[in-house]
């Protein structure tokens, strides 16, 4: 999973939007990537699989051995934690 986040950072360079937008979003993405890295492992995995790898709930449930409801719970808690991490400056 950490590989995926690293790849996320690598991807930033290839972006094609206007320079200012790119800088802005790159920054957001870097912040997000850092924040995601700091999440508990289960939440981090669920978020990366769902949002970055576009895996379906059923697939995530299958690969993690959890129920779809439990995966939804991880996503919910993970997003909430991310929001706190990203809105409150450290």
């Amino acid at each position, binding site marked *: 999973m950490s*590989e*995926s986040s690293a*790849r*996320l950072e*690598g*991807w930033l360079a*290839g*972006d*094609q*939007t206007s320079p200012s*937008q790119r800088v*802005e*979003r790159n920054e*957001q*993405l870097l*912040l*997000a990537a850092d924040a995601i890295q700091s999440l508990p492992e289960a939440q981090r995995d669920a*978020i990366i699989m*769902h*949002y*970055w*790898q*576009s*895996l*379906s*709930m*059923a*697939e995530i449930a*299958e*690969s993690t051995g959890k*129920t*779809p*409801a*439990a*995966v*939804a*719970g991880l*996503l*919910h808690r993970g*997003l*909430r934690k*991310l*929001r706190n991490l*990203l*809105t409150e400056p450290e």
Partner: protein
Amino acid sequence: MSQETNGSDARDERLNLILAEYLQFEQTGEPPDREQLLRQHPDFADELRAFFADHDKMQALAEPVRASHTPDASSQSTEATLITSDDSDAAVDEPNLRFQTQDHVTGSPAIPPPDTNVAFDHLGEQSTPRQSTIIRYFGGYEVLEEIARGGMGVVYKARQTSLNRIVALKMILAGKLASTDDVNRFQVEAEAAANLDHPGIVPIFEIGEHGGLHYFSMGFVQGQSLADRVNDGPLPPREAAEIMRNVAKAVSYAHGKGVIHRDLKPANVLLDAKGEPKVSDFGLAKQVESDSNLTRTGTLIGTPNYMPPEQARCETGDVGPRSDVYSLGAVLYCLLVGHPPFQSANPMDVLSQVLDREPISLRQLNPAIDRDLETIAFKCLTKDPTGRYPSAEEFADDLQRFLHGEPINARPISTLERLFKATKRQPKLAVSAGLLGMLISTLMQVIAAVPALWNLLGASLSSAMMFLVIESVVGCFGGIYSAIILNQKDRLRWTVWITSMIIMLGGPLFIFFRITIVLIAGP
């Protein structure tokens, strides 16, 4: 303390289920309405709102990376939304391959993100709706274009990459197969249907599951469906009869293999390039349209226009070949006059009509329709399954006889039956007629009683008066009963009908005996 923890656990669990269902539906391209969800779960409104906001932000943020799954997404329709699929042919037999090979994430060029408003704070404005992720490859199929979209799923024209053939790929929407039991039944049923090999049946090639979505691939038929044909107007009666004869033969073949269609309707009959009908979606309706799903999504899947009463009542045990015979008759009806036997904007109205009403006579709608053809169609549309053709084969045979100008087996209904059916079609008129009849009958009974009264006067005035009162009361009761019976459901109707006949006839018989006794014995 521990109880409080349990309470909050249960609450979390409930919220998780709501979220999981939302996310699953979202991935099928048909996310539930958020406002409605908030109204349905007011106790979770705050959590849900926060989640949706975070969820949208995260999706917008991840969008560019997600889009790189689908290199050519911009050329596709933005409406076709399913889950993003993976690295094409490599995953033909290994749906979960994506878990091992993640390199493709960076392998494809990224496309410009549609949305840069991704400030990840909860207080910020809702981000614009994300662009749908588009599938290009699904399992071993290359998706070419969307053909149709229904309550059950989406049908795509696709190319099976391993065999390089064009197929119709039907995806069952996630959540339509509620439990593992449903999934298993779907598999069994679909496999049975896959064994059908008949020129009048669209073949099923493969049944499978990919990325949590169940799908099956079937022959791609270039041409329009009967529903499209009927949209242009009713078919000439002979052509309709020929098409339905061929459809019935195909259905009869499937019945012989133990497969019941359960959802025959014009949209499920495709006409190939030569105009030959091919029946699709055999035996697949049952699991997908089961009752639990009706309540789950809150919408009626499909229309009950072609559904026999036993199926409309969800008496699944009674659903058999004769149920398909009903639907065949309903489709024939539709081909002949351009609309199904029962129709209404509200599916519940249709349902109640299917149960209680008789369809309008075909010849009333189009006098050019042969009486025999009408008789054949109406034999199929009998409410009681035992009144229909016992098999699709016999329906086909009777149509064949009609086409050859031979006498048909179906017996036209008698005048009495026709009258009885008319009461079901126009209950209000029938009630008025019934009441009028009873009024006349009461009047005649009173008149008939007059001579007897004169005879009886000598004996006892009070008993004669009593007699008159009884007569009137009996007449009134008869009238009330006749009004009631016309509003009763099938089973009760006969009981009440017989009772009221006894009451109606009882009065005059009583007078007759009194007069006889008076004449013989004297007053």
